[in-house]
């Protein structure tokens, strides 16, 4: 009897120790997963109910989108559109991203001092080219010249007989789709996995997350939000608990340079032509990945002008569920606060 109890004790001891050493947060429910570098970011896909072939197809789809939206690749659709004088017929994917950009531009134009997310500022984005040019700050005249080559009034988009068109009246106008294309691709990837019978899906496109169907045990996903300043505190500032939807983040902490104590990040105010310098992070929870990506950029810019996310909710209820803004003055939550746990 004693030796039996000793065996039980030993078993308990080993079990607890094993749990302590290996208890981590990775998925252990048998879901298939894959990581790949594409669209200038790291992509992680995981889902129950799919096969390796489905993952292969998802990766091939992502590669095909990369070939549409890579503005530095002379073979890409975006590159060719930017180089062309008048634009013209485009792919459904290209049209979809441009259309989302236009919708969010119009929405933000309606409630604040000028559109806050503008995909027509490609010339400006390429002029600064943050962070690839080091601490390069263009002359005021160069910035004005680049801004003069932007503007939605120079863009016409329409569908005709099942074909899609994006045309420009200004030959030098260049599109910058980096603020939307990844969120769009994220949403398309989640939808693709769903169409293949995927369940308990989680996809990450470089920090933008899409989930569908909750976790295998029926509980919601817990998605931590990275602190924009981990050097002065915790690695995360809180977390979302959601079953379905998209978390998009625009932050000033990855692509930036500093000059004279000022941080110049890769997100521009299309009204001034300068990077936004007083928002640290704009996080938004939406039902659409493409809209979420565009909105996080718009909210990032709006915050620097003192314009809050609830202005957009007033204009279009339900455009997002929850927004979380971090700047030098602190952290603020908007919309439905029940999804977010703040630390």
């Amino acid at each position, binding site marked *: 009897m004693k030796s039996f109890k000793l065996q039980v004790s*030993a078993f308990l001891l080993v079990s607890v120790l094993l749990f302590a050493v290996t208890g981590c947060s990775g998925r252990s429910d048998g879901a298939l997963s894959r990581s790949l570098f594409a669209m200038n970011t790291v992509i992680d896909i995981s889902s129950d109910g799919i096969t390796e072939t489905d993952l292969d197809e998802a990766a091939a789809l992502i590669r095909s989108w990369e070939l549409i939206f890579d503005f530095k690749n002379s073979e890409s659709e975006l590159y060719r559109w930017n180089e062309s004088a008048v634009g013209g017929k485009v792919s459904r994917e290209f049209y979809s991203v441009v259309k989302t950009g236009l919708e969010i531009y119009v929405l933000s134009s309606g409630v604040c001092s000028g559109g806050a997310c503008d995909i027509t500022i490609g010339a400006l984005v390429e002029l600064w080219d943050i962070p690839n040019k080091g601490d390069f700050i263009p002359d005021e005249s160069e910035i004005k010249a680049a801004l003069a080559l932007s503007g939605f009034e120079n863009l016409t988009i329409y569908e005709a007989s099942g074909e899609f068109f994006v045309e420009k009246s200004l030959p030098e106008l260049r599109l910058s789709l980096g603020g939307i294309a990844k969120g769009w691709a994220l949403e398309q990837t989640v939808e693709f996995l769903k169409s293949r019978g995927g369940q308990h899906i989680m996809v990450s496109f470089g920090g933008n997350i899409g989930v569908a169907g909750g976790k295998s045990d029926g509980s919601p996903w817990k*998605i931590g939000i990275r602190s924009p300043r981990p050097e002065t505190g915790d690695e995360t500032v809180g977390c979302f608990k959601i079953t379905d939807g998209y978390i998009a983040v625009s932050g000033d902490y990855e692509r930036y340079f500093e000059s004279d104590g000022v941080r110049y990040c890769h997100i521009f105010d299309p009204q001034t032509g300068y990077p936004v310098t007083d928002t640290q992070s704009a996080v938004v929870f939406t039902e659409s990945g493409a809209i979420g990506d565009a909105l996080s950029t718009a909210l990032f810019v709006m915050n620097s002008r003192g314009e809050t996310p609830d202005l957009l909710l007033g204009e279009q209820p339900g455009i997002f569920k929850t927004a979380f803004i971090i700047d030098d003055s602190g952290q603020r939550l908007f919309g439905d606060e029940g999804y977010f746990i703040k630390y």
Partner: protein
Amino acid sequence: MRKIKPLREKPLFGDYIVIAAVVLAAALSFLLTLPGNKAGNTVNITSPGGVSVRSLFEDAEFCVEGADGIVMTVVIEDGSVFAADSGCPDRLCVNKGKIDRPGETIVCLPGHIIISIGGEKEGGDYDCVAG
């Protein structure tokens, strides 16, 4: 009236062993998960050449070959790791500086290299982190 007799009047020697073992196990598991105890932490290096794992507590300097001929020089020093140099154009990996906490990553997108710290995460039990 029938008197209900307890199964056992006094704890047996074996009971004490079980209790002692559970208390010891609980104490050990607590100590193992305390912040600061990072004995199990690793440096995981993912590159086009595959995945390799090193200890976070064995100082080292080595090169990782990435895509497009990009080579990253990685230094493990005093329980932290950083990209000392890289042939990539944007050098975001070098600018990232030192990382020392489980779950933190250094990513070189042009070189397709990910340096991450593995081990028990402190505080957060997330499914993933956005941002």
